[in-house]
């Protein structure tokens, strides 16, 4: 009997291994454990065994049966452990189920990246009003009284206030820098802060000009902030934003509210400085103006320029975003068009 059980088990294991379909496996299971199955028959023979051997054989047969059933179940799973075997059928090449969509505006995303970068350097965030006055737009910014920008049509003056002067002459802010004087008037140095926001110019629009665009300014004021510190700040921020080392250069530029004024260029990321159509073959891309606040600006902010120094940078946010994604039309930012916005999820 024991030999019979061994042989049967041996053979069953071989058959099990050889079966290649669920039907074959089903047949094998019936041939072993069905009513007339070999194993069933063998177990039925138990009663003919001498009682002293019966217990041992019974245990052995049961063990073998459990083993085979486990193996059968494993094999069954193996055979059905593929899509076709499981009885379920679908096309795995279909796209995954969509999420609900939705996205922050790409300019907002860039603004948050910059906020995080400046936050890590200990800058806080500030916001000024969008309807502001000539006082903060020009007077405090060291624009001479007869500066063309004051009378030109570049600024959106508000009706009913256009003939007034200074703080009573209201406009949509033409730049962000005016807000820095508000901050200076409200805080005591030393301080470092950023003030992102939208500014307005009355001009005709095309792929690279908008009437409303975003600027991102940073100002630090401390006892000792030489140009060299300003340049380090610029580099730290750009590296954080672009995720790698970027070469910058600072060159002469002129803006009334800084003295001296700088144009800060970044080596073109498209050509690596070799010169290409994006950078006008110069290898450099104009990124931002900057420089120490003009003493008159500090004075307007209530700060003694003999005691304190500072450094401004003013980043054109739209332009930075356009560079980041290769966007070729600035007007898309205010289009509200989901076909554009859903590319930045």
């Amino acid at each position, binding site marked *: 009997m024991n030999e019979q059980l061994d042989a049967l088990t041996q053979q069953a294991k071989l058959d099990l291994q050889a079966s290649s379909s669920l039907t074959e496996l089903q047949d094998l299971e019936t041939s072993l454990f069905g009513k007339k199955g070999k194993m069933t028959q063998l177990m039925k023979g138990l009663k003919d065994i001498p009682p002293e051997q019966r217990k041992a054989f019974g245990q052995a047969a049961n063990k073998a049966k459990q083993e085979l059933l486990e193996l059968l179940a494993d094999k069954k799973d193996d055979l059905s452990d593929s899509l076709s075997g499981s009885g379920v059928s679908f096309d795995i090449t279909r796209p995954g189920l969509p999420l609900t969509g939705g*996205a922050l505006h790409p300019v907002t995303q860039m603004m948050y990246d910059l*906020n995080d970068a400046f936050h890590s350097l200990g800058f806080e965030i500030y916001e000024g009003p969008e309807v502001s006055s000539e006082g903060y737009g020009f007077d405090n910014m060291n624009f001479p009284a007869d500066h063309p920008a004051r009378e030109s*049509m570049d600024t959106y003056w508000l009706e009913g206030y256009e003939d007034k002067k200074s703080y009573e002459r209201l406009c949509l802010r033409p730049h962000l820098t005016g807000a820095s004087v508000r901050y200076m008037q409200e805080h005591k140095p030393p301080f470092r802060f950023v003030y992102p926001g939208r500014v307005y110019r009355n001009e005709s629009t095309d792929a690279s000009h908008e009437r409303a665009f975003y600027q991102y300014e940073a100002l630090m004021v401390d006892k000792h902030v*030489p140009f*060299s510190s300003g340049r380090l*700040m610029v580099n730290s921020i750009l590296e954080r934003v672009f995720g790698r080392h970027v070469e910058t250069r600072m*060159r002469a530029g*002129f803006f009334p509210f800084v003295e001296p004024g700088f144009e800060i260029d970044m080596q073109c990321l498209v050509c690596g400085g070799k010169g290409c159509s994006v950078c006008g073959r110069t290898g450099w891309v104009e990124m931002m103006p900057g420089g120490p606040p003009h*003493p008159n600006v500090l004075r307007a902010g209530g700060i003694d320029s003999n005691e304190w120094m500072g450094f401004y940078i003013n980043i054109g946010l739209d332009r930075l975003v356009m560079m980041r994604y290769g966007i070729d039309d600035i007007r898309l930012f205010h289009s509200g068009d989901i076909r554009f916005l859903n590319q930045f999820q």
Partner: protein
Amino acid sequence: MKISLQWIKEYVDLPSDLTAEQIAYDLTMSTVEVEGWDDTSSLFDNILVGQISAVKAHPDADRLKVCDVNLGNGETKEIVCGGSNLREEMLVAIATPGAKVRWHGEGELVELKLTKIRGVESYGMICASNEIGLGELFPADDEKEILDLSSHEFAAGTPLAEALPVCDVIYDIDNKSLTNRPDLWGHYGMARELAAIYSCELNPLPSFELPSSDAGLKLQIEATDLCRRFTGATIENVSVQPSPLWMQARLASVGQRPINLMVDLTNYVMFALGQPTHAFDANNVANNKLIVRRASKDEKLSLLDGSALELSTESLVVADETGPLSLAGIMGGETSGVSDKTTTLFFEVANWDPTHIRRDASRYNIRTESSMRFEKAIDPERALDGSKLFLHLLTTIQPNASVTGWTEHYPTPPQELSVEVEREFIINRIGKEISSAEITQKLTALGFEVSQTDDCFVVRVPSWRATGDVSIPEDIVEEVARLIGYDNIEFVAPPVELTKAIQQPRFDLDRSIRTFLAVKGGMYEIFAYPWAEEKFVQAAGFSLEHTLTICDPPSPSTKSLKTSLVPDLLEATKANLRNFATCSLFEVSRIFNGQSFSHWTIQEEKLPAQPKFCGGAIAHNDAETAFLKAKGIVTELLASLPIHKARLQEQESSAPWATKGATLTISVGKHEVGVLALASPKVLRKAGIERVHIALFELNLDLLDPKPIKERAYTPLPKYPQVDYDLALLFDQDVAWSSVEQLVKKCDPLIQSVCFADEYRGKQIPDGKKSLAFQMTLGDPKATLTSEQVQAVADKVLQRVDKELGGHLRDK
């Protein structure tokens, strides 16, 4: 502005190994932005002077000729040409194979090859002036006219680049980078910068001895407020003829077409020194008297460009006793200028009030090379340099010309300007150790006079930098730093003091809201302009009265600043529905209230209220879906923020766009902070939006009072199992879920929560009824519930709902 390197080299001997590119880079870094440059020398490779020895008919083409051309060294080649002015003995420019030409002066440069033209082999081409970039220097009357060099004594075979002064490097300077530097609007000023950058000598300008008599020329300066200086010279015995080739080449190289010696000289002086000048024919000036005055009422002036002006009484003219001769500082008059017959000149070099020139030029919309320079505040001392250079050149070119008179009006020369600055001040700001000697050397190279006592410099500002450009110690720092080179300043980290952590809940709130709506709400953030499109403002039911308005708006229908985000959202939704069946948009932006003013920073400045709002729009073809989606987003948004608990209440709001009965007001703490509602059918119709319903919400973020962090408390998990019990009951249709929920919740303390599952109206439901399905979660914190307890609660609920709200089981 164009700058010629050859012209610069007349004033400064630059190191011979300097490349054009290096100069462009150094100028850009230290002084002005060079946008590009052209090296013209390679343009004339393989172009020679040739002499035509025979003009023969082309065997196969009536309009073409075959010329024998002497190319020097005894070499004669046949060249096919269609020029209209070909003749024997003519000196011409020959582009031989390998030369680059521009066909008919248009398109890209093309390299010439030996080719057959209608069967005849042609050794290159005989060039028209614009085919080899000489169109400015030698203007042609028609396109078939060949450049005729016969008036010059050139030997055949001479490379054109040697024969003509045309090899140069032309820099294109960004005018915007020059606005603060009136001294750089001419070659001499640029030469001074380069001399300083490369530590070279700047050559002095030629001198001229001015006559002591006025030779009868009288000046009458009435507008003394606008005329700072006026010099006049009388030059007799001049003849108006072409200027010498070198001068023509100089002017052509910077884009100025040569006209005749007198006109060219005025232009030459302007491009050399940045000082505009003007020449009158003395015969056209009545009684030898020039008057500087404001124009009278109804006065007219015809200008050189042919335009006729009706002068404003604010305009400034140079006139004689019969009327205006020129628009001061901007453009000369048609009748008083130099003509072929001119023999005596009155030559004007003046200095005008820059603001006046800018306003006057923009009044008539005339911007000239002259007005561009005068509006930058030119150094009045330069007028004398201008006079002397003009007179020097004129009398050198025409030795017979005689300068007989000189007179000027210059009542108040500007005072000398000095700036005191400490060495430490300079070093602290630049962030680099610099010796006193180096500071002195850099400043001296730029024309500043420096005297030093201990560590304090007294810096006298040269007149050409003293018209507003340099006036404070910081300006001196800039001069030193830019000559040292900003590239040579090392990075130094600013000292950082440990400060307390930055807590800005209000900015965090803004960011949390936007991030929630985009990421969890699945909405797209849009930017819209602060001015509102009238059509959508009116569609949303808002009034345009009392809004703030823009003087010169982007369009007549976008005059008003927005008072709500709803019109923007309607407009953007409408546009997106062209491409999408549904859409979800939001915007965070300020709105502008023209009725409420208060100070923002200082008392003197009263600004309109401009609170920050957040608005959203969800468009869907099913009204219920649109509304409930918006409600879900707003509810969860507010619950996620670190603010007091928000309440949404069924009550009418003042929002004119809201549908009655589908409006919830949103309150936080004591404030009503916003509204959520379906846009009414009227709003959609007026906005031209079809097929969808739009749920809109608007929140005033300034009324939210955020805490630094969201406070959340952990609730322990139940110790004993809880039981979910589902019920579906029939109610009259007007029974609100909220009343069912409130009632069920208070039926028994074992009810932990009541959760809405489904609402159904339809076939199996009797008319006027609806089925509400919900789930109660029952639990006892101290014991396991028995099934009897559960059933008792359920019975109690059924009983009370039936009694108080008329709800009962469906099969009853």
